[in-house]
């Protein structure tokens, strides 16, 4: 799991950043061996889940599109698998895939009219879609085709005890490893997409759509592919959410605050980078959870207030997120370790393949 920013370096040398990422991964793998406190494990699961969701979100961001309605897709994924389980007894493992496909189609339906347009249409549509879906589900006891949506009450996943076949476990450890695996898969997918031709297309589209189209890149098509992948992944995350909490309700799972939290880990860590959302989640999920757990009761809304403040600070002062300073730090250490042969100039090789941090920005 090396950083994609080092793509220009010779293949054999694993940079320090790669070692660090590997070390963190190894740590994650062995954490449950010596931490048995369910609450601590729960925080780790949240870290992985939001890293996963943020990575899925960032796939669309890589195309230069800002989605502020990803919670809707997560909610749909969770609802589809849970409803199929409740009504027909279909195992959520299968419902997960159905929900994923369903959300992929929804993503294309949202993306198709909006990606052709310049301007904030996509962002507005995602927000409007998510909010209206939430309002609809909150107020609908029985949806079309007699689907029991149960309104704002939400759905309780029927308890089956320790039943791996239906995605239920009595301890936290299996969830821990599933979430870790999902996060690794998403980060890996994001890594490879960035290495593949598609990643370069997406980078080109977000830096300058006109120039990209002049080079015969079908911008709508690649945005749609990115959106579909992102939606499928987010829906799978929704099923995990429902199975992990054994409860899903529209207010939380489809609400704007969830959309913001998903986007936030990406923004803080560095949207449009492979490891950014993971870094953001490692930093934010524990702090958000602690604020909510210890202060949420007396000061409702405090954690969202802090999140809002954080978004503003990051957008104003650190538009590339935490990923870039970290990468630079590791490169500096790397250069230091490899001896003084390279001057400070060599420690910061210009990265021609690295796209601009914000869509449309041109490097002078």
């Amino acid at each position, binding site marked *: 799991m090396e950083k994609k920013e080092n793509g220009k370096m010779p293949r054999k040398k694993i940079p320090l950043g790669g070692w660090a990422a590997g070390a963190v991964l190894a740590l994650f793998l062995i954490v449950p061996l010596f931490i048995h406190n369910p609450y601590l494990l729960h925080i780790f699961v949240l870290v992985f889940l939001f890293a996963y969701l943020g990575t899925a979100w960032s796939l669309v961001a890589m195309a230069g599109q800002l989605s502020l309605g990803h919670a809707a897709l997560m909610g749909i994924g969770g609802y589809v698998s849970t409803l199929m389980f409740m009504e027909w007894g279909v195992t959520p493992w299968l419902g997960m895939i159905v929900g994923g496909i369903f959300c992929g189609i929804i993503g294309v339906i949202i993306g198709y*009219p909006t990606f052709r347009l310049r301007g904030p249409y996509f962002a507005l549509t995602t*927000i409007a879609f998510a909010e209206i879906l939430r309002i609809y589900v909150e*107020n609908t006891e029985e949806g079309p085709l007699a689907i029991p949506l149960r309104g704002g009450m939400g759905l309780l996943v029927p308890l089956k005890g320790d039943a791996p076949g239906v995605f239920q476990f009595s301890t936290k450890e299996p969830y821990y490893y599933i979430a870790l695996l999902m996060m690794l898969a998403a980060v890996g997918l994001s890594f490879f997409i960035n290495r593949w031709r598609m990643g370069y297309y997406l980078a080109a589209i977000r830096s300058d759509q006109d120039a990209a189209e002049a080079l015969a890149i079908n911008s709508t098509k690649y945005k749609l592919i990115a959106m579909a992948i992102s939606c499928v992944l987010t829906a799978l995350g929704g099923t995990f959410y429902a199975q992990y909490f054994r409860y899903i309700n529209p207010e939380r799972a489809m609400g704007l605050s969830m959309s913001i939290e998903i986007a936030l880990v990406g923004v803080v860590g560095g949207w449009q980078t492979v490891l950014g959302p993971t870094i953001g989640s490692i930093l934010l999920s524990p702090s958000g959870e602690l604020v909510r757990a210890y202060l949420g009761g007396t000061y409702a809304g405090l954690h969202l207030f802090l999140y*809002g403040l954080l978004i503003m600070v990051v*957008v104003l002062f650190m538009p590339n997120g935490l990923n870039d300073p970290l990468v630079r730090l590791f490169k500096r250490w790397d250069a230091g370790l490899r001896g003084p042969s390279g001057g400070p100039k060599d420690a910061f090789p210009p990265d021609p393949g690295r796209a601009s941090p914000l*869509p449309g*920005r041109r490097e*002078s």
Partner: protein
Amino acid sequence: MDFELLASSFLMGLMLGGLYAAVAVGLSLIFGIIRVINFAHGAFLMVAMYASFWLWYFFGIDPYISTIPVAVLFFYFGYYVQKWLIRPIFIREKALVIEPLGVLLLTAGLDLVLSNLALLFFKSDPRAVVSPAASATIDLGFVDLNIPRFVVFILSFAIAGALYWLLNYTEKGIAIRSVGQNREAAALCGVNVYGIYNFTFGIGTAALALAGGAMVPFFYVTPSMGLSLGIKSFIVVVLGGLGSVPGALIGGLILGVVESVTAQFVMSTSSVIFSFLLFIVVLFTRPKGIMGVLET
């Protein structure tokens, strides 16, 4: 479905649409000139309504009077939000960016900050000004028309008309429109682009505050109300055409009528689905909106 019910729901829809239009006009102006979506628009409205409410609650000032100083205050609020928060992003991304997404994120953060500050301080109790004027009605024969709602309806036309006049018949307005059409060319002609941006943001916010003050007598204000009205305004603005002031008026009226009339056929909570469907249909068929002025 008898005619009388339909006619009254149509009229109610017009009143509601006036409210949507009054709220959305400022957003449309800001988008049209500065080309940024102010995500915190609904939160600004919420703050303005709280300001009117507290002025009434503590000092007994009628919202219809206090709305004018509040609007002036909000002009400066918007002015400095643009100057201190949004302008740095413009300067940073000043290359050829037309619509910096960073601003959308920033204002989304601002929205969270404002609405949760309101939640922390004012709690989530819905509040409204209780006054005899709030429940005054005119009997139109088939329906009783609530006067405060009618005031907002009239106000939406007044605000849109005033903005139209400002944009088309004053020197400042010509400068504003020139910046909206071509930032670089306007700058070359000696227009202070960022000054115009600050002014435009201030005017858009002041128009919003004016509408907010007139809404307080009948519209419950809660910390979370900004979001749903903000989203409705996005829909209105896209419907009418991003950046078009008359478009926002027409878009608002259409949305209000659609919501109100469909609510006669389905449960009123489900009628929001129709506003979204309308939004999608417009995006598919006429993305630049009814009065669209932007090339897409």
